């Protein structure tokens, strides 16, 4: 019966990513490629962070509680920096690739940078979500549940929601970050880096799931609204959309596809 927990948590953590993939990515081969390359770049960043972590671990070579704690904070800091570095590297690569695509195939329109930002952000998000959650997810199969040492029994559900927020945040960060790079607004990059650090730091107070989750979701909402405007959304558009004042829905749909 613990398969119920497994599927419940898996749907919570990966359901939105699955929906996004099905409706926005899967239809276009090029988008799939960019998604996977994005995920690969995130993996590279993880490889580099783990090398740093390993070296730091072997240099300090201590099993003390406080030293380990400091090492953990240091590891998170370095990892966030490296991840953002790789995001930037991926941006530069896409920029070059986009120009290359235009040269090879001038008839077809190359995907816009805003689209690529969304796809790569989702790639980053999916990979980081998978890596942070699969171990926990495999343990959720049971037969046991968390709590024998007095921990919260909601551990799995909390982990799933945390994974979800991280995944969505990566997506929004990707959109905002790439836009900042395009418009050469470097303070945007700093904001992305700082919010990333903030969310990472929040996980250190993890036994207090409430504060942890609520603040992470607040940051996500903030980043989501920002990304919405960056992507070309506006109040007017939203209103039009919600009130169905645009052109005929079905007709429009057929035309666009």
């Amino acid at each position: 019966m613990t398969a119920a927990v497994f599927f419940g948590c898996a749907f919570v953590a990966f359901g939105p990513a699955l929906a996004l993939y099905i409706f926005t990515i899967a239809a276009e081969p090029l988008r799939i490629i960019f998604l996977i390359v994005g995920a690969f770049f995130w993996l590279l960043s993880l490889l580099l962070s783990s090398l740093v972590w390993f070296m730091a671990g072997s240099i300090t070579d201590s099993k003390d509680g406080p030293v380990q704690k400091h090492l953990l904070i240091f590891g998170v800091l370095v990892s966030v920096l490296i991840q953002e570095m790789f995001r930037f590297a991926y941006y530069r690569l896409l920029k070059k690739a986009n120009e290359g695509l235009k040269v090879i195939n001038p008839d077809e329109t190359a995907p816009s940078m805003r689209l690529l930002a969304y796809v790569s952000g989702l790639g980053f998000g999916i990979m980081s979500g998978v890596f942070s959650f699969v171990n926990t997810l495999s343990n959720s199969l049971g037969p046991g549940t968390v709590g024998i040492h007095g921990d919260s029994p909601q551990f799995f559900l909390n982990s799933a929601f945390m994974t979800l927020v991280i995944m969505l945040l990566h997506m929004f960060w990707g959109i905002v970050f790439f836009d900042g790079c395009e418009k050469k607004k470097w303070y945007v990059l700093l904001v992305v880096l700082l919010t990333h650090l903030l969310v990472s730091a929040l996980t250190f107070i993890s036994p207090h799931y409430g504060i942890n989750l609520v603040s992470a979701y607040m940051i996500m909402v903030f980043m989501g609204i920002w990304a919405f405007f960056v992507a070309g959304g506006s109040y007017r558009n939203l209103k039009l959309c919600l009130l169905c004042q645009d052109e005929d829905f079905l007709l429009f749909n057929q035309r666009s596809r």
Partner: protein
Amino acid sequence: MATAAGGFVANLGSPGLLHLLSFFALLAGLCRGNSVERKIYIPLNKTAPCVRLLNATHQIGCHSSISGDTGVIHVVEKEEDLQWVLTDGPNPPYVVLLEGTLFTRKVMEKLKGSTSRIAGLAVSLAKPSPPSGFSPSVQCPNDGFGIYSNSYGPEFAHCGEIQWNYLGNGLAYEDFSFPIFLLEDENETNVIKQCYRDHNLNQNGSAPAFPLCAMQLFSHMHAVISTVTCMRRSSIQSTFSINPEIVCDPLSDYNVWSMLKPINASGTIEPDDRVVVAATQLDSRSFFWNVAPGAESAVASFVTQLAAAEALHKAPDVTTLPHNVMFVFFQGETFDYIGSSRMVYDMEKGKFPIRLENIDSFVELKQVALRNSLELWMHTDPMSQKNESVQNQVEHLLTTLQKSGTGVPAVVLRRLNQSQPLPPSSLQRFLRARNISGVVLADHPTVFHNRYYQSIYDTAENINVSYPEWQSPEEDLNFVTDTAKALADVATVLGRALYQLAGGTKFSDNIQADPQTVTRLLYGFLVRANNSWFQSFLRQDLRSILGDGPLQHYIAVSSPTNTTYIVQCALANLTGEVTDLTREQCQDPSKVPNENKDLYEYTWVQGPMNSNQTDRLPRCVRSTARLARALSPAFELGQWGSTEYSTWTESRWKDISARIFLIASKELEFVTLTVGFGVLVFSLIITYCINAKADVLFIAPREPGAVSF
């Protein structure tokens, strides 16, 4: 962000295990025991399982399903508590934590009757041992493999006269369909009980609230039905497969034997050479795998025989005695006489230096440590004594024994009614093959004095071996207990009797067993194997087999076992002599003049500590202590369904473990699943709508040509 998520996981479990680290561990292929798992499970490390054994017709023991059996823990401290488990409790199946005193046939039968509500059983050790006695063995041990049968001495068959182990409840020979584990560590038992009290204890008889404390027991056995089936499967596998999956192995090990006067071990002795055999058994068992302290049922008797061998070897005229004396320690006697039946088989087939015809007389030591008064009882076989010449020989044997007992006031040898049958003993296997004169010495005239025969409680306390608390281990080793003194007296009687039976007359009274030897052996086998004396006579490579606890005397399938090695080394040390050979010469003495590998066994031992306790003084010991294979002839002959020879096999298994954890309620699981579905459906709808209206929502003013979403 992954790092932060890792921190999220790691910070909950144990500080310091970041998921980056677990990623590195994953790279190294060590993806086990992560922090989440440690948050969920408490492994139980000091447990002993009950495993499946098989013979020609049956399977006995316990087993679990392949993925382990899980159940809610219920502590049963008195018999009324069973009611909850068997009928009332609303959350079956249950794993019962049973008090050691309740591990009785009556309770087990109740549990066996409702297997659908029982997932498994964890038994805690009763302290002190149950006062009414406890023996999981049967009332008539090794029935059917001794001398008496329906065609030969039918009145004695199936212990018709005397149920020797009258306390035996037969649990160790039952088949259970659920796993049973012994909890050896009191601290772990308390952890489980605390978990039970915190989560499962119901106020005023109502059902306790989730989460509940549960236990999972893994002891999946590969073999089924019987030895015939499992050996056939194994042999088919090994015929056709390069990588055979063996499902069961025969119980086998080595007998230890030595001669008073060295003989050529690779040849055979002359037909008219006479040999007096002194025999005893090395092994015991209990309900649980590899828990076989066997203090009274094995240790006391083989320790006595070791002391007697030492005493006899010290007699000045041993080399000129007319007869030779053979000391033999049979392994696997608990399981239908594996060791003795193999030796008889080898003697008959001429694969052993001594033939059955060479045996002059046979003296066997059975349980001897629990003498109520001074008496030591001499058991003989009524059937073979129907032959007049055998009867005369037995009469001579008994007279000699009684005569040699006269010099030792603490032991009075007593005859029994001539029509009383033999207790279960190795002598029965020899009598099956040939009418020889033999006697079995024991502390009981009829039923066993041992109330814990082949049980986990047959420990040092059972034979009253105890030490003053203030002593150090080294002082304990040399502290002569009363039991040691009593056993040394028995050893003296045995030594003198063997001397006289071998034809010696002059120095009978000089033979005296050393209580110091007995007490050191008892300490090593029953209290602490890792002691300075055992270390000094063991081979270098065997140093690590000594643990801080007592030795276990289960025969097992991987041989030789620790007991066999240690008894061989002890026998070599007690009866052999130290030579001045170097290490290389000791390993290959054939190049050294005056040394003969056929006559002697050479062992390079660690030796005692030197005077300033820093280094050992290794040396070469020359003795006649050898090993002889103790694998049942049934497997040699391929007769897996044999009724003549022992057919016991032990099933194989992959994983034996136990752990406790909490299980969540069905409601919480259902809520999680519903939330998951909700999130999935919601996100599918939202994404579809946004994607459909992307053109309206997201206007790209500066890139009119680009495809947007």
